[in-house]
């Protein structure tokens, strides 16, 4: 069917091409607008910072770097594990795809669990979101990102369920590839969030 159509369009001088799937462009554009969301949040962060003489405000320590650094490495390494899962799928090795996706969920789960620990036990001892604008931004931006990680975990669990039911294979990689674009975006955004909110206040704050 498709070959016959190609023959007709070629007859009218239209070349045959191969492009990216529809879902790819959809998720790329989603990543664009989600990234913009974090750009706006971080610009607001720097805007309020620029209008204060002390950031974080008096009595608040700059965020610590060691644990958050380890968490960052774990989160970023899930970009690699999901890439390995994809590669396994493309090669027809569904077992590898399963294992690396489980590893991704585990890494993301560790990141989210430590995130919850930070906001349930650690941060409230120091400050609340209602204490000052710094606290409001801190809670809002980091939980926005945490929510994105949580959505990612839901997506990968959904993918695992389908994988277990026998879906996906070398010829059916699109859902996996598009979901991983979202995941890479969430990871890349974290680099900017961590740099702006953990690293820079330590370097420039006080």
């Amino acid at each position, binding site marked *: 069917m498709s070959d016959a159509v190609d023959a007709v369009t070629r007859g009218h*001088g239209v070349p045959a091409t191969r492009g990216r799937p529809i879902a790819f462009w959809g998720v790329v554009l989603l990543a664009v607008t989600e990234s*913009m969301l974090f*750009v*706006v949040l971080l610009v607001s962060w720097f805007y309020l910072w620029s209008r204060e003489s002390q950031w974080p405000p008096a009595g608040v320590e700059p965020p610590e770097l060691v644990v958050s650094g380890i968490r960052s490495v774990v989160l970023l390494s899930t970009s690699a594990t999901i890439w390995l899962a994809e590669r396994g799928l493309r090669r027809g090795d569904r077992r590898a795809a399963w294992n690396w996706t489980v590893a991704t969920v585990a890494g993301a789960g560790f990141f989210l669990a430590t995130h919850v620990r930070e906001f349930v036990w650690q941060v409230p001892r120091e400050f609340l979101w209602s204490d000052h604008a*710094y606290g409001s931004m801190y809670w809002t931006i980091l939980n926005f990102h945490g929510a994105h990680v949580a959505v990612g975990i839901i997506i990968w669990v959904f993918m695992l369920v389908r994988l277990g*039911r026998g*879906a996906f294979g070398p010829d059916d990689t699109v859902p996996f590839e598009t979901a991983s674009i979202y995941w890479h975006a969430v990871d890349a955004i974290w680099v900017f969030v961590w740099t702006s909110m953990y690293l820079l206040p330590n370097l420039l704050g006080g």
Partner: protein
Amino acid sequence: MSATTTLRRLEASWEDPPGLLGFLGSVDHKRVGRRYLVTAAVFLFIGGLEALLIRTQLIGPAAGVLTPEQYNQLFTMHGTTMMLLFAVPAESAFANYFLPLLVGARDMAFPRLNMFSYWVFVCAGIFLYASALFGAVPDGGWFAYAPLTLEAFSPGRGLDIYAVGVVFLGLSTTAGAINFLVTTFKMRAPGMTVSRIPVFAWSIVAIAFMILLAFPSFTVGPLMLEFSRALDMKFFDSSAGGDPLLWQHLFWFWGHPLVYIQLLPSTAIVSTIIPVFSRRRLVAYSWVVAGMLSTAFISFGLWVHHMFVTGLPQVTTSFFSAVSLAVVIPSAIQFFSWIATMGLGTPRWDSPMMWCMGEMFLFLLGGATGVMVGLVPFDQLAHDTYFVVAHFHYLLAGAVVFGLTAGLHYWAPKITGRLLDERFAKVSFWVTFVGMNLTFGPQHLLGLWGMARRTFTYEQGLGWDALNLWSTIGSYVFGLGLLLVAANVVWSLRAGEPAGPDPWGGGTLEWSTPSPTPPYNYARIPVVTDRDPLWAADWATPGSPGDPEDPDDDLALVSSDLHHEVYLTAGPEAGSEGTRVMAGPSFAPLFTALAIAAVAVAMVARSPVFVSMALVGVVATAVWWFWPAEGRP
């Protein structure tokens, strides 16, 4: 297969199924477009009634029609309704119905997401208006400046409904924008190279990118407002390290591009209509497209011109003033292209063309006063007066509404299959045009004479009485004119002359298919070899892409199992890629929209338990949406 069997099979594949699934679960972009159009018209009517109440209150000094509280609620809801529930959805209506047709596609790239956008829009509209039932109508202006809108100064739930409602609505706009872009990237007919994309489709591309980059700001801002109100966060509280100006930056970084999101498709409609009625191709097509894209780009560097009186440094205001003047250039390019097209062609003055002339005139006046308020010293005098009201109503109630109405007169025959009454259309044009100018013309003078905006009345003896009276009379005439337009459309549904496929002699693809558009859009996937395919010298000659006698059925893409089969292309050349089966009707988009509406309600109710339950509902409906069809793992 004979030609009639082909059409019958196509119809069976693409028609909505009967019953509730077809009605609530339809994924037909034409149905979505029609629904957007009718719903936007309803909101135009509601927003118009609010405007008439405002004008009635201002008919004379101390008229006593409305209390100050009611006046505040009305101008807030009028602005919010017209900007978000009328103008943007009305552009979406045309984009939904005509973007796939213009690019020669049978469907949008994400059919279910498309229906989802509509359901979210309807739910958000009802959500914003449900505030009236609980006596908590937003009253902080459509711009909702903090700190006025913080809990301390605006108690009650009115502004919570505003803040949550606009974020909710933004979801619909964003989903729509992604859909429009991917449709243009992937669904163009084979051979529709980048330089053959119709101007209107280009305008949708431009505004879709603007939506993706501007709307996040209007997600973050209102959420910060809601968190400040409900959770006592301190973003806008200067006593705790916050800054009220942050709200204004976030609001206008979205709010200014929003104006062009409304204006660009409207001017693109003019660029579409003028060549058809001048019987000449658009002059300087590539310049017009470049003009629209650069307007989209520049519009992100204008937002501070809404904030010239907030005490920002002079270097900042000067920069934004200069950029505000620069945006005149791409607009002027479009203008000169229209004039040249008419001058080099032989114009015919049918009703769509009349509305275009109205659009040009009002755009010119609104643009000229825009240059004035773009200058910092003049703006400092005119700010918050009726001069500004007159300026932006010439653009939004003038240029945008007239451009959209031009599009309605031009494209209604394609949607309904029937022509509007031409004489009636011209009468309604003149009534609307006179009413529009009578309403907003005098407001320039009122503004220059010092009458302030957003004030529920004025005192006697200031010399404003006569002009306000004229303005109020004008608003009734304006409203009457738009009602006449609606009456004409309704009348034509029953009694209009059958339009035939191409009543105007248009050059773009949508005129090559019967009116009303059949469920499958095109009996054969069109192959495009020209920017105005129907005007190509060899159109419909034997062996050409439009040849009606061509027995070759390969381009019909008749699906053996009645699936929605479409043809994909790729790259700037729109090279052919292959066929693909699209999603059919489903209830999941509706239920996902309802689950998100439940989150919005729960947020306004400030109930963490209810919010969590509703979020679980969103996840459940989304999983249902993405769950593979029966028989697939």
